[in-house]
């Protein structure tokens, strides 16, 4: 089994490839060495895998690049892949998410961008169009930037209904469409906004959601890591219940669902918004096997103590093998893998720039 792991950092992309079932890894890079890469996807819906990446250059702006040879060479469309239309009076500042559409629509790709926008491509990522229904939503002008920027950072197309998409926005909250993007409604009931005055902490929208996730076989159930708060929704991302009880803190960024077992989720808690360090300086991934009711700390193979690096919202992922590999990368440039769903961890790469995203697939 060959697995490809894409690693996006603040300065360039690396690729780790395992040809022996994740026992060893061959690392290549950097690609786009001075560019920040917050968004990566390894698209396996077509006849051969394609890698798409959003790269941002401090001097020359942001674009989407594509590789059809597993990250060895790259292509950028002649025309700007993502650009705000003239009447939007906005300029693209960053690409936070590249998300594959439904399996039976291999040319559909979504991009979540900064400032708060959603784009859709129907040609595999060569060109994207602004989803106007969300851009023109009356709430948009009240969305605030999160600490990382005014970003739409999570896009979850419904796995079987092409008209339905759910997005996560910092700091706008969760929004859902059921009509192909024409109309959107917030889905934030029960999510606390700790940064608001005490009597206003459950607003209709404006929450600082950090990450949303689902398993495609249970698309009515969502999981969410908030800016303080870890939640589960059983009603299609309308209302939410806390599942933070068994975690050492309710702050963090990533939220990952197992690709085959919808009860199994992974999280990397940090202590509070003020500190944003692993609790007590201990590097621990937390796994729940009952959809968040109880949690187990996983540490075999991870550093012992004195680990103070955070893990960003897209810097944890799984591959699609069975058993699944789980991966995470830190702001100190280490990337870890577990080949047995969390029991044992091994180092894939170290001494990279700070890791912003990881994505893995069997290729």
């Amino acid at each position: 089994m060959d697995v490809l792991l894409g690693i996006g950092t603040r300065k360039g992309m690396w690729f780790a490839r395992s040809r022996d079932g994740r026992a060893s890894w061959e690392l290549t890079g950097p690609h786009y060495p001075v560019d920040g890469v917050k968004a990566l996807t390894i698209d396996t819906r077509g006849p051969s895998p394609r890698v798409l990446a959003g790269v941002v250059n401090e001097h020359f702006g942001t674009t989407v690049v594509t590789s059809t040879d597993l990250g060895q060479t790259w292509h950028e469309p002649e025309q700007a892949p993502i650009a705000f239309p003239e009447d939007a009076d906005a300029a693209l500042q960053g690409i936070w998410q590249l998300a594959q559409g439904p399996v039976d629509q291999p040319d559909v790709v979504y991009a979540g961008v900064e400032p708060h926008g959603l784009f859709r491509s129907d040609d595999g990522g060569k060109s994207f169009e602004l989803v106007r229904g969300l851009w023109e939503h009356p709430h948009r002008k009240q969305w605030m930037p999160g600490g990382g920027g005014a970003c739409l950072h999570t896009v979850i197309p419904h796995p079987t209904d092409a008209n339905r998409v759910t997005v996560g926005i910092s700091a706008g909250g969760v929004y859902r469409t059921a009509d192909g993007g024409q109309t959107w409604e917030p889905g934030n009931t029960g999510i606390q906004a700790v940064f608001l005055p005490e009597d206003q902490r459950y607003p209709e929208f404006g929450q600082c959601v950090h990450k949303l996730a689902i398993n495609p076989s249970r698309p009515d159930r969502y999981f969410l890591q908030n800016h303080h708060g870890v939640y589960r929704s059983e009603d299609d991302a309308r209302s939410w219940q806390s599942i933070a009880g068994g975690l050492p803190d309710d702050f963090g960024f990533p939220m990952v669902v197992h690709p085959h077992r919808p009860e199994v989720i992974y999280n990397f808690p940090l202590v509070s918004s003020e500190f944003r360090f692993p609790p007590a300086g201990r590097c621990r991934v937390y796994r729940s096997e009952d959809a968040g009711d109880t949690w187990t700390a996983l540490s075999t193979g991870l550093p012992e103590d004195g680990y103070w690096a955070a893990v960003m919202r897209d810097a944890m992922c799984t591959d699609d093998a069975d058993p699944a590999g789980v991966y995470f990368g830190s702001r100190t440039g280490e990337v870890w893998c577990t080949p047995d769903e969390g029991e044992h961890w091994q180092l894939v790469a170290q001494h990279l720039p700070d890791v912003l995203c990881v994505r893995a697939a069997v290729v």
Partner: protein
Amino acid sequence: MAVTVRLPSVLRTAADGHAELKVPAATLGQLLDELGRRHPALERRLRDERGALRRYVNFYVDGEECRGLAGAETPLTDGAEVDVIPSIAGG
């Protein structure tokens, strides 16, 4: 009427490998419009989709940075030389 645009090495791949381009233009904005027609992947590295010059890209028109002149409206005379020089950004 033509002006000469000199590109830093990092931008040459977006201009079919050219280090210099001869472009007819009476203002810096017109020059960028023409670059957009010839080499769209180059032009979008120099200004955003609203037409704003990118903050960390400097345009020296005959040795003077255009922001001290008239920005994109800076007039270009026949034979003018425009240097594109990335500013300091990032870490």
